[in-house]
């Protein structure tokens, strides 16, 4: 029996002809691509190219911008995320997000992680919550550093620790997908390496989409890379191909530092 079909990763997410407008200004043009399940996909491109706008389509973060309109389909497991039937709050429990600057709540380390599971009713008692907090911090590679500081203020952690706390907070509510918008741009090289190693670990459990300005980071952490320019998806393919022999001249120029 030919089982080769089973080896092809399913598209966890699909974008079909996605157009995004900020008032009259169009930010994305007919973007269509599929995201493999349990993989890391990088979105790269110069500032203003639409990569962060596209990332925010996947958890409807653009909904909070009044002038923003999104056309086309974003499918999670073949369900259209923009359907009126979808509750954005529940959607964001399945698709977590980590931002450029670590943004822990001004609460304790424990409360930062427990906050999401509590409002989603994921723990029946303190024991279950303790388990979720510990498990999430372990998955985020932070447990050893904070296990004796759970009641300390999260804002007292280092920048890299705060960012991993934000990742723990995002995964505490059991998402399928993690969106990361330049998660290392505010971190030093050591903290960046720790986050990159963490991304590789998390890949076995989550489908990860990451926006990054670091070509080397995209090359290191992702299996697929999409290059955007002026709102267009210029090239999308295997990361090692994009960074060694890109097919499009614009991609080549960008990754080689030939256009701003």
């Amino acid at each position, binding site marked *: 029996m030919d089982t080769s079909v089973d080896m092809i990763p399913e598209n966890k997410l699909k974008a079909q002809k996605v157009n995004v407008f900020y008032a009259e200004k169009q930010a994305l043009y007919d973007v269509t691509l599929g995201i493999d399940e349990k993989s890391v996909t990088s979105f790269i491109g110069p500032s203003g190219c639409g990569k962060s706008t596209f990332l925010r389509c996947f958890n409807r973060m653009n909904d909070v911008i009044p002038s923003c309109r999104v056309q086309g389909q974003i499918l999670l497991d073949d369900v259209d995320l923009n359907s009126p039937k979808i509750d954005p709050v529940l959607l964001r429990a399945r698709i977590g997000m980590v931002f450029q600057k670590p943004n822990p709540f001004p609460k304790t380390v424990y409360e930062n992680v427990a906050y999401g599971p509590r409002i989603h009713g994921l723990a029946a008692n303190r024991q279950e919550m303790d388990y979720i907090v510990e498990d999430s911090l372990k998955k985020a590679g932070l447990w050893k550093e904070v296990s004796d500081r759970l009641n300390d203020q999260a804002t007292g952690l280092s920048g890299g620790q705060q960012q991993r706390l934000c990742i723990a907070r995002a995964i505490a509510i059991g998402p399928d997908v993690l969106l990361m918008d330049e998660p290392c741009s505010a971190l030093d090289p050591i903290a960046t390496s720790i986050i990159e190693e963490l991304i590789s670990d998390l890949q076995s459990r989550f489908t990860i989409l990451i926006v990054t300005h670091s070509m080397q980071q995209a090359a290191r952490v992702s299996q697929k890379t999409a290059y955007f320019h002026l709102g267009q998806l210029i090239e999308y393919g295997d990361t090692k191909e994009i*960074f*060694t022999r890109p097919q499009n001249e614009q991609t080549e120029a960008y990754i080689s530092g*030939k256009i701003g």
Partner: protein
Amino acid sequence: MKDNQHIVTAFDDDLSELNISLQNLGKMAITQFELSIDALATQHQNTLDKIIKDDVNLDDLEAAIHEKAFEIIAVRSPLAQDLRHVLVALKIATILERTGDYARNIANRTKVIATAGNENIPGVNIGRMGQVTRDMLQDVMRAYATRDADKALDVWRRDIEVDHMHTAFYKEVLASMSRDPNVVATGAHLLFIAKNIERIGDYATGIAEQIYFLVHGAVPEDSRPKADRTSRVVGV
């Protein structure tokens, strides 16, 4: 700003320096090889000494190219064609340095042959074989300068001619050695010299493959035609 320029102009300067150094190494290797073929015919002692003495210049320039490539990788993090440019420069530099070593070896062996003073060894085709190989080296380095993958492939295909000449020369020298035991020592040196030339032809094809990779990001799909049959010659 031109399309092919980097925003960081020092990156262009680095790649340009690498390029110029590699082309200089190419010129030096071709000159050393050309002189070694000429000196094989003339047995001119000063020329032979110069070839042997100048080989160190190729070693030094190869080391400088390696150092520059190392620095570019560390400082500029090249990608795509820039990365191929640096990797290809490293490989071609090594090939050209080895070409210089073979030229020096030809000079060393020619000195021994000149001392033996034997006039009865046939050498009619070795000069021609050297010229064809020299032309291949020149053409392939021109193809590098112009990033011309088609021209590089043309050189790649021409190596079969050197292979044929090598096989013929091998049989010719072997026959002479069979007829006259007095020429065995000289004949053995000539066989090595011919093999050196044949290897330099192979190196030219190696450079051609690097140029193709530089331009297209992949190695040539066809297998290279080969016709060196010396390993199968059992007697004459």
